[in-house]
């Protein structure tokens, strides 16, 4: 009897040791003051911020680098205006198309489908329904309306302005236009200027001379 008691005691001790090893708490650190940052970490919780929240909206009126104002309003009128007059400032090149395709795969294809026919994975699983095909006659999307909808969102579709940059959105626009042309069975034409100057070829001609040239260019840009 005594030995069984001992066995039970040993098992209990081992069990309690094992169960104390909790995964829901972070481990000890050797020198926490070398681990913990002095500055504020992204998404940190610090009493100095309202609500303790480091992640805040930028101060009103602040302009991020490379940002350009978007003049069209988030309204039916703004949508129509963008649809009629807004044009893609990014060149239609094969490279941009490729980038647009990658971004489309990340952000759009999950609902709109790889071919843009509105049959994405979420639609097939009936999580989100009613996603239109890009060749929908009633909508008749244009490059301006594609950008406008990505910027503000429309109806059930949210805005993607937080996840993409201006250039990235225009690259996606280019790819969406290609998908639309494919769906309609029309050829998708890459713009004339872009065809005349394929940038990829130029760089391989003379690496060193080119490097000097680009160096010159960057210094010039800096001076500006």
């Amino acid at each position: 009897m005594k030995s069984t008691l001992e066995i039970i005691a040993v098992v209990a001790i081992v069990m309690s040791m094992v169960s104390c090893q909790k995964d829901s708490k972070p481990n000890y650190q050797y020198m926490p003051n070398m681990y913990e940052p002095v500055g504020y970490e992204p998404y940190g919780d610090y009493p100095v911020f309202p609500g303790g929240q480091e992640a805040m909206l930028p101060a009103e009126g602040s302009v991020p680098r490379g940002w350009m104002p978007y003049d069209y309003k988030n309204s039916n009128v703004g949508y129509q205006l963008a649809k009629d007059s807004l044009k893609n400032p990014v060149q239609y090149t094969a490279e941009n198309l490729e980038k647009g395709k990658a971004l489309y795969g990340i952000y759009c294809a999950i609902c709109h489908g790889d071919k843009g026919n509105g049959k994405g994975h979420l639609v097939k699983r009936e999580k989100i329904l009613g996603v239109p095909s890009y060749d929908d006659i009633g909508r008749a999307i244009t490059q301006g309306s594609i950008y406008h909808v990505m910027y503000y969102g429309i109806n059930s579709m949210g805005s993607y302005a937080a996840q993409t940059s201006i250039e990235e959105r225009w690259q996606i626009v280019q790819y969406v236009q290609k998908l639309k042309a494919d769906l309609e069975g029309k050829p998708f034409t890459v713009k004339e200027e872009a065809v005349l100057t394929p940038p990829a070829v130029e760089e391989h001609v003379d690496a060193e001379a080119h490097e000097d040239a680009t160096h010159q260019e960057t210094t010039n840009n800096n001076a500006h």
Partner: protein
Amino acid sequence: MPKNLDDNSTYNMRQVKYRNSVAKVLILGTVFLFALFNPVMAQDEAATAPVVATSGGDIAKGEALFKSLCAACHKRYKKMTGPALFGVTERHSTEWLYSWIKNSAAMVAAGDAEAIAIYEEYNKTAMNAFPQLTNTDIDDILAYVSVPKAAPAPVVGQAPVGSGGDASGGVSSTVILGLLALVFLMLVVVLFLVNKTLRRFAELNGLQIPENEKRTPIWKAFVQNQFLILVSTVFLLLVSGYFVYGFFMQVGVDQGYQPIQPIHYSHKIHAGDNKIECKYCHSSARVSKTSGIPSLNVCMNCHKSISEVADATATEEYSKSFYDGEIQKLYKAVGWDADSQSYTGKSEPVKWVRIHNLPDFAYFNHSQHVSVAGVECQKCHGPVEEMEIMYQYAPLTMGWCINCHRETNVKVEGNAYYDKIHEQLSKKYGVDKLTAAQMGGLECGKCHY
């Protein structure tokens, strides 16, 4: 075991027979329990929702059209971007609906009172025109939306076919384990009882059970053997040294860290079942040092439309009402009023608990690894698409970083930045592919400065 019992019972007294039957009853009981569970589950799968048919228009065709064209903004029984469509035929005439669906904007412009009233009610949201729909198509759709909501019962019937198998697997595994434990316990009890009875018989029959004779206790023998003591001391020291080393090496390593998050967000459902790209939510991993915790507007991109999970999403562990409750937590945090389909403007931060954390003295940049090197997220974060609750997969130690830098070839194709340096270094090392280490990926200053 039962065989022995039978043997005993034939030879001996009544009592034994009685015990035997107790065991039998227990076993039979277990079998009965098992039997009980199966029909219950079979019933679940068998139940189907009754199909309600109404006149005028093809419901199946209407359903397909509704799901592909209308469902973006309308639900049948719930307000969404547009009104709930059940009963729309009673609110408006069919002729009016034909022209409204084909081109609503024109009707508003023409000053149709009914049209303007709806346009104003829904914050001047213009309904898309559907010129491609014929009147028959519209009839089909109207037939579909006029199907009254089924009673709460269809919960089971509407579940996709695939779900049945999963659900039945979940229940029985715990039940079977419990029953197994019960059976083992019973065996132990039976053994004990048999032993006791046998001893009693031995006693009654006057048999002597031989006692073990006294020997030197084992610990005394151990102490007397000095060589054994020496060997075991060395062994103990080595073992304890091993464990002490192991303990000191894991200090500061958070592998397996799995905190409880304020909202139960399942990566398994989102990234696994629904195949949403990692970078959809963690979009700044492409362009910035931090991979980024998505702000709640990113959640709302989808959850504006998805206010509750499908029945098939619920698992044994987490019920549908649990998941729906978690979505409600999101709505509360972001300040979304599902009834009026608008933001209340009253939001509160969600205090996610950070899992992956490098010490301040080590620099790591996501964009360099995700965009430039093209490393899969799973390489460091593990099978996230299978994690119901997120945990830290990799140890995130320096040795772990360096191992990968030694093994991984740098992706130089199509990256003009690497052209020249690759040419020079590959000549220097005499290889045609360079690892990150050979490019200087092991220099202290690369990560510690």
